[in-house]
């Protein structure tokens, strides 16, 4: 056992229990159903804006794009326009592919000793992090979008279409949503990777495990409510609609599991800006990705440059001309 994942795991358990017992035992429905969710949204937005504005105001004096292909050079040398872009179109394409397809993860490699007698160290392509990340991010996106059915009434047809596509396998009752199952499995895979691969365990901190456990807790409690323990969905929707129309009501007959789910989501929102999850905003602002590599074509002046007092040769000669002529040194201008 490793305290780096034991502490976050315990924390998520405790957070769950705090909300569950707080509602079931102490009857704090108002706190966990209204007060904390509002606070979490405020903390999320304020923290997010604060972080991004902080990044926006920091100086980026140098062009530091990572280059993963041939730079623009002589006309007969083929440039890699996406991986080493020199125009803003190339940069845009690179960013779009990075944001939607995670190309840099696609290039992930692993180092391992060969299992034969030679026992040499070799590097090989490792695609599973990329696959797990894609599955996780896209299923989470669909799950979040699906939740808009609790915040809109009547529910827009595009959301109904999304639900229809997500539940197209018509498995079980209520029908299985593929995104929910994929979300839980993908987070479990990403966790297993951190726990079981010794090299990844070594570089994993509590701040890496905590969001994973939190999202696993959210997914597990959500799936449990939908498929196993069951909840009064109309009651829950009156609460969520009350929240977004600023006239919150606490419905009767909704149990602690829902409030625990809501509390974990609130914690995720509030924790988001202070965590590594801020790569949501950071990916757009990473100077190694969003800059064109055109330093050979264009002069970029360091914005930090102050006015340096220079003393050119002409000024030097003007200053010392007579003395130079006296000493017999050559001068550019005799006068």
């Amino acid at each position, binding site marked *: 056992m490793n305290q780096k994942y034991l502490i976050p795991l315990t924390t998520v358990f405790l957070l769950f229990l705090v909300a569950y017992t707080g509602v079931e035992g102490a009857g704090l429905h108002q706190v966990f159903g209204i007060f904390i969710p509002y606070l979490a*949204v405020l903390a*999320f*937005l304020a923290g*997010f*804006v604060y972080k*991004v*504005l902080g*990044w*926006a105001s920091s100086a980026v004096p140098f062009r530091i794009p990572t280059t993963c292909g041939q730079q623009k050079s002589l006309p007969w040398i083929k440039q890699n326009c996406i991986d080493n872009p020199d125009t803003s179109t190339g940069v845009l394409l690179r960013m779009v592919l990075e944001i939607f397809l995670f190309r840099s993860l696609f290039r992930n490699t692993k180092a391992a000793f060969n299992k034969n007698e030679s026992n040499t160290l070799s590097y090989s392509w490792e695609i599973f992090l990329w696959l797990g990340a894609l599955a996780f991010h896209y299923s989470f996106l669909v799950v979040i979008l699906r939740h*808009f*059915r609790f*915040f*809109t*009434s*009547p*529910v827009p047809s595009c*959301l*109904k279409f999304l*639900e*229809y596509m997500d539940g197209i396998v*018509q498995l079980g*009752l*209520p029908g299985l949503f593929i995104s929910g199952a994929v979300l839980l499995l993908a987070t479990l895979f990403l966790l297993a990777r951190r726990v079981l691969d010794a090299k990844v365990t070594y570089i994993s901190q509590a701040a890496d495990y905590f969001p994973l456990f939190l999202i696993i807790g959210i997914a597990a409690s959500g799936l449990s409510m939908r498929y196993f323990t*069951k*909840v*009064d*969905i*109309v*009651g829950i*929707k*009156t609460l969520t*609609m009350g929240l*977004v*129309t*600023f006239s919150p009501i606490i419905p*009767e*007959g909704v149990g602690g599991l829902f409030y625990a789910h809501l509390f974990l989501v609130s914690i995720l929102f509030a924790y988001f800006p202070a965590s590594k999850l801020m790569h949501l*905003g950071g990916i*757009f*602002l990473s100077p190694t990705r*969003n800059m064109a590599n055109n330093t050979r074509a264009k002069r970029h002046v360091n914005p930090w440059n102050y006015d340096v007092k220079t003393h050119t040769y002409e000024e030097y000669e003007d200053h010392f001309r007579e003395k130079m002529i006296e000493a017999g040194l050559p001068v550019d201008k005799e006068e």
Partner: protein
Amino acid sequence: MNKNMIITGLIIFVLAVLSPFWFNIITTIEAAPKPELLGNAKEEKKCVLEKYDMRANHPSLLDEWRDSVVRDSDRQYKAANGHTFEMSLSTGKNSCLGCHEDKAKFCDSCHTYASVDPYCWECHTNPKEIK
């Protein structure tokens, strides 16, 4: 990235996060349906499950009923309150819709509100519609 682009992106993001709030201001909201007992149900006042249990668990109950009827031809359901009911969604006086007569109010209003689209009516018919 220049500052204007960052600020524009940030504003779009904040608006997207706040969309549940402003979307409900610019559109008219359909209020939550208020369940009411009509017809036979109003007089009977006894059902297969308790109120909140029913709201949460009726899909799985109907699922169990379907298996029981189709596979074991067992149509009798003994409820926790001691009464025995006929396991049927839409046939006969003792079925769900025999007692709760108005499908639009009894089923559809909540299903539409919660954006749930059960496939009951791909096989069953609303008894009121057969005429």
